């Protein structure tokens, strides 16, 4: 009996494709690429690879507007994280990513796995993470119980993961507004240090080289919900429903140390973390970037749960896993290093040169897909956009303050959670571990020293969602400029940004307009400041009950301070100092 009968996979039809999230055009395109109808497993792979999250199909045309070059840029967008030069061959590798939807479903785990994911993005490139930041948006916690619950859960999730992993969370941003009540935002940044000649990429080269799976075992975590039509899996479907992803920061710490130890050797060809769409996106990305192919023997994948099917294994989003390609003949050495760190490592495939990803199950070929076309020919949409009505109305609004009672206003401001101290948050984060944090959270920007260098790294995360709603173009500009200003005020020279673009449903012209304008505003500011975009992430569909969030393009500016002893904090330092007011 073949796999398809054994697991009772349904026949592929347009209906099944739609359930998985593909539309008719996309389904036809898949057929065109293959020259035949995909089977069930293949269809699942198309759906995952062509999801908004993996393919950036609605944002790609606009993201091209970002400036991405400068002499200090070592790696721009396109890899797991961006890299810039800081001091000679010492480089900073960083990226922001969102974990909004999972954090609404399960605040603690959603936020925790968000931190875990972004850390893996950074250390797969060979960088040791030295700092995290978090940008958070919640509903009104003074009135709304649920928002308060989410807020507390998210903060302890970030703390739980980052503290245990051993990376300091050195700053961030928090904003409360009812627009985020049902769509909280959790944006996490990780930044690591890497030597320029020690950067690793997601490559699968060298015919016959082993493909090795490392890290945690695979479970049914986070398999795309829409694809799980219950009947197909028989009577115990209840237990097979997708699970919330659970983070294990301790395992991730082991994975970090093992990977960094491994990368000191020259028998690693390429490495890629298994993030969204797990084994699917990692294997296809590695093969397509190298113009090679891979064969995977899915029954070899270490599984946590019994009876997992090839489909589930390909689409699981279990955490703390990596895929790597090693040089042939060094398999034992790789396995030895992972054994030292008590981690699973298994040879699950090999590199080929035919441009195909071929999946086997107990010797049977169960899927065969061309690697490159799945990525390169992914659908791209130039979605219609249009200036929303609210924008015109607001333009004519007069925002003048009337009848202002200064005492009351002052009191109101001080008790507003948006203005009050964020100590409650950042004291739950270990912001000092690794003893590099030399301007602690509480200041406008955080500063990290680099042991063995005179220079410092300056970080600031900013975005004003309200401004972005009122005028996304200016709001986008302001986010970049505010972050740059904060970096400058700590004594740093702004160098580059990573961004996380959080918006509503891109199929709505109003939302798309906000997106386009914000990207244009940010691009303009980045060009003027000569701070290119080196990495980032887009999160669409932050909508509930048809209501989208205020547009929130979070910006993290990274800068360098030539002499870390000259860092500045943003508070009065001494009695008797003279206070100046600069600007208009």
């Amino acid at each position, binding site marked *: 009996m073949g796999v398809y009968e054994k697991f009772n996979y349904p026949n592929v039809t347009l209906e099944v494709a739609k359930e998985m999230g593909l539309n008719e055009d996309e389904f036809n395109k898949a057929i065109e690429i293959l020259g035949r109808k995909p089977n069930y497993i293949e269809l699942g792979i198309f759906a995952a690879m062509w999801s908004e999250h993996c393919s950036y199909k609605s944002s790609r045309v606009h993201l091209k507007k970002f400036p991405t070059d400068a002499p200090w840029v070592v790696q721009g967008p396109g890899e797991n994280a961006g890299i810039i030069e800081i001091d000679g061959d010492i480089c900073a590798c960083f990226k922001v990513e969102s974990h909004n939807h999972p954090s609404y479903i399960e605040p603690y785990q959603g936020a925790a796995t968000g931190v875990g994911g972004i850390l893996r993005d950074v250390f797969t490139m060979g960088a040791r993470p030295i700092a995290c930041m978090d940008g958070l948006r919640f509903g009104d916690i003074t009135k709304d119980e649920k928002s308060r619950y989410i807020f507390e859960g998210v903060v*302890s999730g970030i*703390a*739980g993961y980052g*503290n*245990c*992993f*051993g990376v300091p969370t050195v700053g961030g941003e928090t904003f409360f507004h009812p627009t985020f009540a049902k769509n909280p935002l959790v944006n996490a940044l990780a930044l690591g240090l890497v030597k320029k000649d020690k950067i690793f990429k997601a490559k699968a080269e060298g015919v016959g080289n082993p493909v090795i799976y490392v890290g945690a075992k695979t479970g049914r975590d986070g398999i795309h919900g829409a694809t799980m039509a219950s009947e197909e899996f028989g009577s115990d479907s209840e237990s097979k429903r997708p699970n919330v992803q659970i983070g*294990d*920061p*301790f*395992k991730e*710490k*082991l994975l970090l*140390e093992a990977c960094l130890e491994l990368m000191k050797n020259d028998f690693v060809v390429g490495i890629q973390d298994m993030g969204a769409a797990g084994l699917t996106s990692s294997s296809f990305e590695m093969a397509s970037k190298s113009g090679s192919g891979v064969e995977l023997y899915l029954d070899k994948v270490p599984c946590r749960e019994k009876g997992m099917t090839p489909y589930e294994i390909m689409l699981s989003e279990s955490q703390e896993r990596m895929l790597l390609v090693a040089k042939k003949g060094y398999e034992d050495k790789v396995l030895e290093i992972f054994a030292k*760190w*008590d981690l699973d490592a298994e040879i699950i495939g090999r590199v080929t040169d035919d441009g195909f990803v071929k999946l086997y199950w107990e010797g049977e070929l169960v899927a065969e897909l061309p690697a490159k076309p799945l990525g390169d020919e992914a659908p791209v949409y130039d979605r219609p956009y249009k200036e929303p009505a609210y924008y015109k109305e607001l333009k004519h609004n007069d925002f003048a303050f009337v009848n202002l009672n200064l005492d009351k206003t002052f009191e109101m401001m001080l008790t507003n959670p948006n203005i009050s101290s964020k100590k409650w948050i*950042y*004291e*739950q*984060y*270990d*912001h*000092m*571990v*690794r*003893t590099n944090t*030399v301007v*602690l959270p509480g200041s406008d920007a955080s500063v990290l*020293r680099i*042991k063995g260098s005179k220079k410092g790294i300056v970080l600031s995360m900013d975005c004003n969602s309200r401004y972005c709603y009122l005028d996304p173009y200016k709001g986008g500009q302001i986010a970049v400029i505010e972050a740059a200003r904060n970096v400058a005020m700590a004594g740093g020279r702004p160098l580059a940004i990573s961004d996380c673009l959080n918006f509503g449903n891109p199929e709505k012209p109003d939302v798309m307009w906000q997106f386009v304008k914000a990207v244009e505003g940010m691009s303009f500011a980045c060009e003027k400041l000569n701070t290119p975009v080196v990495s980032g992430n887009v999160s669409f569909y932050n909508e509930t009950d048809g209501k989208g969030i205020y547009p929130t393009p979070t910006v993290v500016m990274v800068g360098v301070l030539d002499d*870390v*002893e000259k860092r500045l904090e943003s508070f009065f330092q001494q009695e008797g100092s003279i206070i100046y007011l600069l600007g208009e």
Partner: protein
Amino acid sequence: MMKAGVVVFPGSNCDHDCYHVLKHVCGFDTSFIWHKETDVSNYDLIVLPGGFSFGDYLRCGAIASKSPVMDAVYNYAEKGGLLLGICNGFQVLTEAGLLPGALLKNRSLKFICKFVYLRVENNFTPFTNLYSIGEIIKIPIAHMEGNYYIDEEGLNELKENSQIVFKYCDEYGEISKESNPNGSIENIAGIINKRGNVLGMMPHPERAAESILGSKDGLYLFKSAIDYIKEG
């Protein structure tokens, strides 16, 4: 040259920080000691660093206290070797029975990372001889389980033998409920064993050993140990 060792459990994450201070700030010949090693006889000072040794699953420090290296560390301490447990290292020491008492969850149930003030209660130890008694020092804490507990009998014994080394206080040295960050019994932040060679403390002296980090108060703890070792 004086030799220092930093024990590395898989989830230790202050190991590099301790290494940095011991080696680059204090000039020890310093090495890491992997938790599977079984010989630690060759050191003048051993540090059990902070972190989450085995994810802090089950109880902080519990699994680490059963790892192979701890038998060797136990013998080392029995022979009078200087042993310092910081944060998770303190938890490991209590779990291993090298120090009395236990560390429970913070009263707030939350992780707390911030600078606190400590009052030196006993400067007659190898780790505190450069402080004066009653001195107020500023050192950060970063923990979820730092709430020191011991039963009454044990507490009396600690007092009788002057085993309480540090207490949480405010900047004026006041020891009160307000200056107690985690609910620790009698504001205890660090204790030493009866023999006087094993110190456990929740605050992180290695995070306060260079002026760039905002305090150098922790440095004198390591310097005290150096003086003590030199004097033999």
